[in-house]
């Protein structure tokens, strides 16, 4: 970590840094597969880095490195001590450190994906860590899951319902899932994917490009204006970077 810490503010973005995109969801729903898909789809056009939050050792990071979708150095692993939700919501220090280390080493970047460890329906990212978040479900968990709601399903900026190819085998009704998700999400988008059949997840990648472009043009707070209530006027606070002052804490 002995990098040049004075060189933190080099990114050309109006926010001074890359968009941070959280990818969360239950165990086995396809978070790592989606992250790999986004690296495949976007790795040639966007300057990317990935932080994984592994439950055991560095399995997800190793999977991504083996998949060869991104320079292995651009993938950092955070260990969460049995508590994946803590590391992305209540105590984001290790994740912020990993994100900033990647930005120092490879920056300026356009996008840093933070993939959470597999957790439950209540796990969401702190707005102090992720500017946008995707929640990933899969059809094999049952078509009742969107109806059950929970903060991940209801508040994520994008809900992805993966493994649609399995729907006939597990008796999941995609129409029901789509209707129920729409009912609890107040117009926020829902995308259906089968990453096994379509390994670049184009629809999700397009959504990500949209939010990265909006971020790069300074329209960072988005329709829900999340940034202003995070209450973090830290030492690095700068006018014109709403709610993201923590990102500029010099080390």
């Amino acid at each position, binding site marked *: *970590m002995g990098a040049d810490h004075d060189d933190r503010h080099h990114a050309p973005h109006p926010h001074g840094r890359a968009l941070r995109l959280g990818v969360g969801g239950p165990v086995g729903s396809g978070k790592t597969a989606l992250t790999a898909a986004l690296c495949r789809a976007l790795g040639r056009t966007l300057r990317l880095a990935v932080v994984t939050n592994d439950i055991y050792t560095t399995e997800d990071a190793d999977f991504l490195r083996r998949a060869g979708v991104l320079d292995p150095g651009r993938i950092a692993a955070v260990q*969460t*001590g049995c*508590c994946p939700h803590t590391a992305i919501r209540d*105590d984001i220090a290790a994740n912020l450190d990993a994100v900033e280390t990647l930005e120092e080493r490879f920056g300026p970047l356009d996008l840093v994906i933070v993939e959470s460890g597999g957790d439950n329906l209540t796990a969401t990212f702190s707005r102090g860590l992720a500017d946008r978040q995707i929640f990933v479900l899969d059809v094999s968990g049952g078509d009742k899951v969107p109806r059950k709601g929970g903060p991940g399903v209801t508040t994520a900026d994008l809900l992805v319902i993966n493994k649609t190819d399995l729907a006939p085998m597990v008796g999941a009704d995609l129409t029901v899932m789509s209707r129920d998700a729409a009912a609890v999400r107040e117009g926020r988008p829902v995308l259906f994917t089968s990453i096994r059949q379509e390994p670049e997840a184009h629809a999700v990648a397009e959504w990500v490009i949209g939010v990265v472009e909006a971020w790069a043009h300074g329209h960072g707070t988005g329709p829900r204006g999340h940034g202003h209530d995070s209450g973090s006027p830290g030492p690095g606070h700068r006018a014109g970077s709403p709610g993201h002052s923590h990102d500029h*804490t010099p080390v």
Partner: protein
Amino acid sequence: MSAPSLNAALLLLADSRLPAGGHGHSGGAEAAIAAGAVRDLPTLAAFLRGRLATSGLVAACLAASACALAASSAGSGTAGDPAGAPPGGWAELDAEAGARTASPAQREASRVQGRLLLRTARRIWPSPVLDGLARAVPEGAHHPVALGAAAGVAGCAPGEAALAAAYAAVTGPATAAVRLLGLDPVAVHRLLADLAPDLERAASTGSGAAASPASVPPPRTAASVWAELPAHSAPALDLLAERHLRAGLRLFVS
């Protein structure tokens, strides 16, 4: 008889909910459990006593001195010019912490936790003293040094900083053992309560050993006092830390 006043900021610093990355570390407990050395309440109690008597006591002494150094830096205006050279003392005290941490894995874990704590503390208690520490030790100050510095900036006394360091030395592994072994959390807290007199003794030792440039009369120097701080070692903890780093399956960073 009036109770001694305790700085409320100490409670924030000692709270496991402080968002400073501590939840990802087991203080050697995960490796001890994997090795079979900790498997139930009695073995956990022995582990915690051993840890407190060795690395816990050393951490308490380092934290107390860091607290004293922070207080003297703030008071004397030697926190350092933001644009200039790092202030004196921090690199020397941090080197004493490194010299007392034999295992490279533990040194790295200590630096990571110190860096994360300092990151958090600088937002909670913004101060040129903490900025100076970050500048003086850019790779990340050792955890007891960062903890003591944060405590000093928050207005705590060296003994309070030492108490927080000793407390962290046992509560981290205790919580990890609850998660990993499924131990009764109330029974584990009773173990911790039984350790209270030992925690207070460690804090008292730390407080007595604390030294800053302002408190050491010439011809002695603070650095010469720091060199004489307790240096108890725990070779088993060192070996477990090294083994943990190479474990194929682990939940905690350290």
